[in-house]
């Protein structure tokens, strides 16, 4: 059942790589938050109750509810709920993500045989999620998709932490949360303040930024 849930996590990334609507990205991020919550709840296996409560809060409230709502707010406010403008075609995006996931399964297979003390399935999917997140960041033009790619990358890192450590250190969870906070903060700052001078939130316009 746990593997079933992790597969669904991978599928959200595959969906993200091929969808053309920004709103679908937000939905995928929310779905990933719910999946991480389920994983923490059912497969974390900790005896440390405050830690479990903190992680549940982080995944369900922050990742699955607060951030998607904020992203939707930014999207609505700026009227950018259109297409995502990738540099590559959707077909090649899908092909690359598929290759990344096949490689992720290979990594899971390799780690199952070689590395002890690791949950290979988490490991493979999290590595491929991180790489796909990076790929989304480099292959999309709009700034908001960069931040959302970063969110997915962070979700992958969260999954990676679940795979390596039975007991995820509190400091790791805090670090991830801080990263997300900064990313969303920067996004809000950028979109709400810089929007006035630059109507289009394309990264092409950033190249023209001069003093």
């Amino acid at each position, binding site marked *: 059942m746990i593997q079933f849930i992790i597969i669904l996590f991978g*599928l959200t990334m595959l969906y993200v790589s091929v969808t053309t609507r920004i709103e679908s990205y937000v939905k995928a991020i929310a779905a990933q938050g719910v999946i991480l919550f389920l994983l923490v709840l059912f497969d974390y296996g900790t005896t440390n109750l405050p830690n479990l409560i903190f992680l549940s809060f982080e995944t369900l409230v922050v990742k699955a509810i607060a951030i998607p709502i904020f992203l939707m707010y930014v999207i609505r406010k700026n009227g950018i709920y259109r297409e995502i403008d990738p540099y590559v075609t959707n077909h090649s995006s899908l092909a690359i993500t598929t290759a990344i996931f096949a490689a992720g399964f290979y990594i899971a297979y390799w780690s199952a045989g070689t590395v002890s003390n690791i949950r290979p399935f988490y490991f493979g999917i999290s590595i491929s999620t991180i790489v796909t997140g990076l790929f989304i960041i480099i292959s999309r033009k709009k700034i908001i998709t960069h931040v959302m790619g970063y969110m997915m990358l962070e979700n992958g890192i969260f999954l990676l932490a679940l795979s390596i450590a039975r007991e995820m250190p509190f400091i790791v969870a805090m670090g991830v949360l801080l990263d997300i906070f900064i990313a969303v903060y920067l996004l809000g700052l950028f979109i709400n303040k810089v929007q006035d001078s630059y109507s289009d939130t394309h990264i092409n316009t950033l190249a023209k930024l001069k003093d």
Partner: protein
Amino acid sequence: MMITIINIALLLIMPFLFLGFINRIKSRWAGRKGPSIMQPFRDFMKLMKKGEVISSTSSFVFRLAPSVTFAAVITAGLIAPLAGGKSVISFEADFILFAYVLGIGRFFTVVGALDTGSSFEGMGASREVTFAALVEPAFFIIIASLGLISGGLSFERIFEIAKGGDVAILVLPLGIIALFIMLLAEGCRVPVDDPNTHLELTMIHEVMVLDNSGPDMGFIMYAAGMKMVVIGALIANLVIPAAFPLWASLGLMIAVQALLAVVIGTIESVTARLRMTHVPQFLLFMTAISAIIISTVVLFIAGGIK
């Protein structure tokens, strides 16, 4: 013997109920009471009694096409495992015949459409073939990877054995999603094609049958429903445990098909058709999933991810 009769009866009756149920779900979403679930059957009987109008420019191919398509889909239905995981006809590598029998049906629909000489229908035919070419390899990869796990070569054996073990739980969600995309594409349902629109530039399957009328039209409608039931049966076989007694698995089969109808009706009510340029992406998603399935399966056979 018993199981054969049940399966044939299921194959013949279910398409009407399936179509009727989808329509009922759609009308519920729209806030209407909706037609009776048996309405597709009544439509079919009405069409059977009607005469036909056949264009003077078309040849015997046009008259042949709907019957051949219908026969092809019935044959595919006999090969696919229905209740109890048993097929009416089963032999080694029958899934290849399954895919190509559906291919023959599609070929005759396309040829029949081209025979009318209408440019609309030619366009629809071109699209149909393009999209079918995207779906077929993915189908083969999925069934082949299931066969790889189970070591069986016929549908019955593939689905019987593929359900046990660790790898099954991985392949299951992916396989269900991929086959569901195939169901939508082959059944000409909403994200790919809209069964309700006639005479529009954006459609695929409906445009190919614009010239058909009377009993031929009835057969085409029946075949479309049956195709969905047959592919739905493949999905159901992924879910239903092999060791179930016949009546339980029969009930589960009907339940899964009803659930599929609910999902299809919901999708049709809440989403719009994809733009034509986006349909290949939707279908290639299935190919991507099948690539992941086969990589998983190969790695499991090589040693396993524990």
